[in-house]
């Protein structure tokens, strides 16, 4: 005998206790700390900070621990916390030209002021699993440049700019508000500041695939990695009551400037154009993907042919947010039995009509065309 299912509350509690138990894993293995995650899984922490739009390595590390290493879940946890925070002001724009460089490479020039700095990179490693890492091992000291070596490293695009070979960056209106999609609904057409914000917090995998698609011909942008730089920048704020800049601290950022071919149009001479990527922490793949997609989304404003997925702002921006995407995809887990019931009833009815039509068609002589069953027509 059927008894109406009760006990949702008890089941939820039990499931969450089980989750906590599974999260801990084998109790004979020492529990991981969020400090260990912050220090030793730093790139995971960086990705969470970047896509959560919240620069807090400790919080991101804790979120990764709570999420059992599921980074989208960790991003979600950090976002849900972020949205409860008060805004007490807006910082001044950071100066990435004055970045304390930890890594800086240009694929466009062999050498340039400030030099090429490889920094901590997987590039040129041979991807061979290292059995030595299975055991704790001593780490040799990295080599350090002499302080006076830290020469000024102007942006590659600034070097091109001085020759007029690249489109100038548009100067913002000093008092113009910057778009903020965490404080207003996303609308179209989306201006570039809003697009860049959406891309900066967009899913790395989604942007990677879109950027890749432009390289394979779906909206080619002919990019050169003008420059990728990673390092610390100072953040400062001008409190209204003081009227002068106060440094708040520093951020690690990765910035990518793509330099793209442009054949010119009736309005603009042939020149290089820009695609821009800027993300929290060391997230190079994301910064590069972002720069590719940013440039693609400018196709219409530059009078280029459009139609590729990566050139479609409404398509890209509406689907780049992985917290939104995962929520809606996974909501299919929720009960839908009311709607399913409605569909069941309709399907049974349509099938009954189809059977009846077919039975009556079989009793009639063949060749009697014209009045076929609507369902049969649809199947053709």
């Amino acid at each position, binding site marked *: 005998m059927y008894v109406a299912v009760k006990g949702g509350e008890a089941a939820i509690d039990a499931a969450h206790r089980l989750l906590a138990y599974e999260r801990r894993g084998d109790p004979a293995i020492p529990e991981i700390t969020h400090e260990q995650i912050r220090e030793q899984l730093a790139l995971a922490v960086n990705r969470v900070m970047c896509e959560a739009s919240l620069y807090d390595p400790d919080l991101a590390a804790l979120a990764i621990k709570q999420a059992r290493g599921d980074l989208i879940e960790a991003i979600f946890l950090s976002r849900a916390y972020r949205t409860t925070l008060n805004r007490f002001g807006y910082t001044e724009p950071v100066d990435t030209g004055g970045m304390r460089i930890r890594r800086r490479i240009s694929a466009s020039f062999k050498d340039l002021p400030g030099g090429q700095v490889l920094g901590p990179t997987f590039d040129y490693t041979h991807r061979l699993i290292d059995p030595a890492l299975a055991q704790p091992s001593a780490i040799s000291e990295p080599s350090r440049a002499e302080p006076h070596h830290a020469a000024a490293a102007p942006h590659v695009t600034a070097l091109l700019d001085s020759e007029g070979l690249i489109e100038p960056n548009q100067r913002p209106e000093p008092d113009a508000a910057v778009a903020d999609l965490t404080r207003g609904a996303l609308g179209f057409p989306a201006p570039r500041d809003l697009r860049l914000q959406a891309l900066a917090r967009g899913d790395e995998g989604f942007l990677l695939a879109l950027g890749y698609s432009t390289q394979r011909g779906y909206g080619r942008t002919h990019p050169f990695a003008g420059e990728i730089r990673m390092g610390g920048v100072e953040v400062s704020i001008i409190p209204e009551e003081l009227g002068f800049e106060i440094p708040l601290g520093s951020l690690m950022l990765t910035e990518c400037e793509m330099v793209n071919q442009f054949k010119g149009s009736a309005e603009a001479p042939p020149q290089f154009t820009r695609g821009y990527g800027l993300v929290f922490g060391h997230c190079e793949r994301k910064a590069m993907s972002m720069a590719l997609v940013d440039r693609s989304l400018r196709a219409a404003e530059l009078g280029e042919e459009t139609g590729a997925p990566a050139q479609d702002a409404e398509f890209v921006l509406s689907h780049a947010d992985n917290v939104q995407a995962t929520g809606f995809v996974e909501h299919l887990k929720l009960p839908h*039995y009311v*709607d399913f019931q409605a569909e069941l009833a309709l399907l049974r009815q349509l099938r009954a009509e189809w059977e009846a039509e077919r039975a009556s068609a079989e009793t009639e002589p063949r060749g009697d065309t014209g009045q076929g069953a609507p369902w049969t027509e649809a199947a053709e």
Partner: protein
Amino acid sequence: MTASTPIYNFAYLDEQTKRTIRRAILKAIAIPGYQVPFASREMPMPYGWGTGGVQVTASVLGPDDVLKVIDQGADDTTNAVSIRRFFEKTAGVPTTTETEAATVIQTRHRIPETPLAEGQILIYQVPIPEPLRFLEPRETETRQMHALQDYGLMHVKLYEDIARHGQIATTYAYPVTVEGRYIMDPTPIPKFDNPKMNDCPALQLFGAGREQRIYALPPYTQVVSLDFDDHPFERTSFDRPCGLCGSTGVYLDEVVTDDKGGRLFVCSDTDFCEKRRAAGQRGGASL
């Protein structure tokens, strides 16, 4: 990092955010059926799981309210339990499963069988607020279609249904016209529930968190399900009563009772069914 628990505002959202959401709600009430964009916040539950409804509820809820939360008509489905607990924890308001006792009802996919009354607020969770979305994926296009009341595409779709299936083959999220102006998505409620929206004494609010839209039906708004003169809207009907309480003219869930084709049809509205049984009503499957 401190281990202290963050203290949240009443009903979780800060007052500034609630004010912006209330402004969107007021605009929605002023233009029934129109989708008002609003700055949806990340909530501590996933997008697509009721974040729009939760934000609307959080914005209209006061300490004196009594809250009911249902999903698929039932108070004890897991997501309804989760949302009810969220407000018990963050707002401390009393909750109920009784439709009559609630001042605010948040729902997913159903309208209660017990008629709603003046003073009540029914808040729907909305997955896709745009009724034209599956005909035209671009928001820029659909907003213009609404502005121009250009609904030909929808009528063609319904006509094609009739040409192909002999009827309008939409059983849930069946589109409606509000006060003769906007076509509105009633959310994925079964079309069985559509007539309850019309001339309803309660205020009906709709929140779509991921899609950042709020819309509303003020009390006693005219809501008409789309149809044609020669193919009028038909409400789904069931050929049997509830197996537990014997009700007819209510929406039923089909429950699989064994692997030999055994089925039991029971009320989807658990509160309604329990009340009937408490009053001594019995269906064919009752002990």
